[in-house]
């Protein structure tokens, strides 16, 4: 229990009145001393109860340990007073700085009778990915004057993982040009297992009865079998640029967060087409996930994106050796980078000349800067925009598919437009 400084002042007042009373031999100071001592007696009424039995529990919605970025999470604090009446109880559930309070309050002052229970509710959301610790819950008894403060035990911290937001992209097909021999959704323009009719041929022993083309058989008086276009899949590697000097924006809103959200959406879309998807993140550290398929792979990629932090000195040029030595050749490499560091484009161009498909999705840093910074110079912005357009055009000419993406808009329409344009060019 903490005593406030009032006691120090009351003690000083008592002593000074006693000393001055003796010095001046005056009854007035004696009255002062007696009155001050009376205050001490009255203060003893404000003592916190000896036995404070408080049960504090935090219940998160559905025992959730994972939420998506900007999703609301409801927190409930259940308080039960099993001891004496508490007149002034302060309850504070400590929230990390980035977490936003969307409804209710995490800080209350209330009184609880003996045996009384109360529930406090509030909602939070987090604008960035990562692991966040909610709490601990601090409880403090205070009297009305502030004589005494007693800290009480509350509930422990609760860890929540904030996952990147995934955008559903049903209208775009992002597929590598080079397919591998395993089944997928990409039309391989060769005969194989699939659902699209390709051609017919003479029946060979062992062909399935269901594949016999009865019309052709009737016409030519000999059995003919249908052949189908093989559907295969390929490898897609997502590369997220988190290089420290290249990130633009503030902690709540920056190009890295936009890149992480884009990577999560692309991973979901390409995995659902039965491609093998891998991930490379470069920032605070260099980390990767080897290509694989399935839901587990999606969770592995999400887990890596969630804990990924920007910073460090791992630039994109260092990724080349990783790609060439550890990742399969002839993959579709999707770079997600704001392209604020010019030397990274050289890596991309270099990869275009090798047997890789390169796609560059670039969240526009100017749009983010304009939103977070009030003072921005138009001239510098125009100059940067010209440089960026020039770089994007250079990447196009070298064979990369480039998507200049406004991070405040959905990614799918931007991708759709670019892929349609690419199809028209091919024709």
């Amino acid at each position, binding site marked *: *229990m*903490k*005593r406030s*400084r*009032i*006691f120090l*002042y009351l003690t*000083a*007042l008592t002593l*000074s*009145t006693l000393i*001055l009373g003796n010095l*001046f031999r*005056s*009854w*007035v*100071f*004696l*009255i*002062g001393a*007696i*009155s001050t*001592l*009376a*205050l*001490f*007696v*009255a*203060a*003893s*009424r*404000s*003592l916190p109860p000896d036995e404070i039995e408080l049960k504090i529990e935090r219940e998160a919605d559905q025992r959730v340990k994972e939420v998506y970025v900007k999703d609301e999470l409801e927190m409930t604090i259940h308080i039960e007073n099993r001891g004496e009446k508490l*007149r*002034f109880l*302060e309850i*504070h559930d400590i*929230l990390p700085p980035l977490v936003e*309070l969307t409804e*209710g*309050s*995490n*800080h*209350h*002052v*209330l*009184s609880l009778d003996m045996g009384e229970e109360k529930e406090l509710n509030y909602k939070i959301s987090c604008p960035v990915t990562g692991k966040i610790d909610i709490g601990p819950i601090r409880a403090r008894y*205070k*009297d*009305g*004057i*502030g004589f005494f*403060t*007693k*800290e009480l035990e509350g509930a422990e911290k609760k860890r929540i993982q904030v996952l990147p937001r995934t955008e559903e992209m049903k209208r775009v097909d992002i597929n590598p040009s080079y397919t591998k021999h395993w089944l997928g959704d990409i039309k391989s323009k060769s005969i194989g297992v699939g659902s699209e009719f390709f051609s017919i041929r003479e029946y060979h022993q062992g062909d399935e009865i269901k594949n016999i083309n009865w019309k052709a058989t009737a016409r030519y008086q000999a059995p003919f079998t249908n052949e189908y276009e093989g559907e295969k899949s390929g490898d897609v590697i997502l590369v997220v640029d988190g290089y420290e000097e290249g990130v633009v924006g503030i902690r709540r809103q920056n190009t890295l967060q936009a890149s992480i959200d884009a990577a999560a959406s692309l991973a979901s879309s390409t995995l659902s087409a039965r491609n093998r998807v891998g991930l490379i993140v470069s920032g605070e550290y260099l980390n990767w996930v080897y290509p694989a398929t399935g839901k587990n792979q999606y969770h592995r990629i999400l887990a890596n994106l969630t804990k990924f932090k920007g910073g460090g000195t791992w630039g994109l040029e260092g990724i080349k050796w990783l790609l060439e030595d550890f990742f399969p050749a002839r993959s579709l490499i999707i770079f997600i980078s704001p392209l604020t560091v010019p030397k990274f484009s050289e890596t991309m161009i270099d990869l275009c000349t090798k047997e890789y498909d390169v796609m560059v999705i670039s969240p526009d840093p100017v749009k983010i800067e304009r939103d977070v910074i009030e003072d921005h110079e138009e001239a510098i912005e125009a100059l940067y925009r010209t440089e960026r357009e020039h770089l994007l055009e250079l990447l196009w000419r070298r064979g990369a598919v480039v998507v200049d993406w406004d991070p405040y808009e959905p990614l799918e329409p931007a991708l759709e437009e670019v892929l349609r344009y690419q199809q028209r060019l091919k024709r």
Partner: protein
Amino acid sequence: MMSGGLASLISMHSPYWFFPLIFISISLIGFNLKKSFVLDTGILLSVISYLFVNRGLQLKTLNILYIIGIFFLFVAAWFCAKNTLMVQEMINAFEVPDGERFVSFRRSSLTDLFNNLILSVSIAVIGSFIGIFSSLGGGLSADLEIILMVVFSSLVFFIMYVITNLLSKRRAE
């Protein structure tokens, strides 16, 4: 400010009548700047200066009540100021201010404060009369004075016990 002004007004017979007014102004500055130390020191000095200014008062029942009254006026102003600063601090600490919550807290804490003050005044009045008449006489019989002295001494021991109990409570980390 009112308590300091009143104290100075009533003490105009003394050459140092303006002392309480000066020190209460200091505490007012501390209250406005939300500096607790300045507020507390100002009040402490104004109480002491008020007692000092009135040290030559004649021993009469009315004067005893007058001294106690003004003393507790200072104390009431002090505690109200502390309560206001505490509530303000709590409001600033809250992420989402909720006036409703603080109105009820303020109401119950001020009720508590005034209950404590009334109790203090009662103890002070009784204790003062017992103390004064037991130690300084006042026309009472010797037996009565002895009884009053015993009662006063018992009260002093009781208060010492309370203070020792209060001050010896373990400080929380």
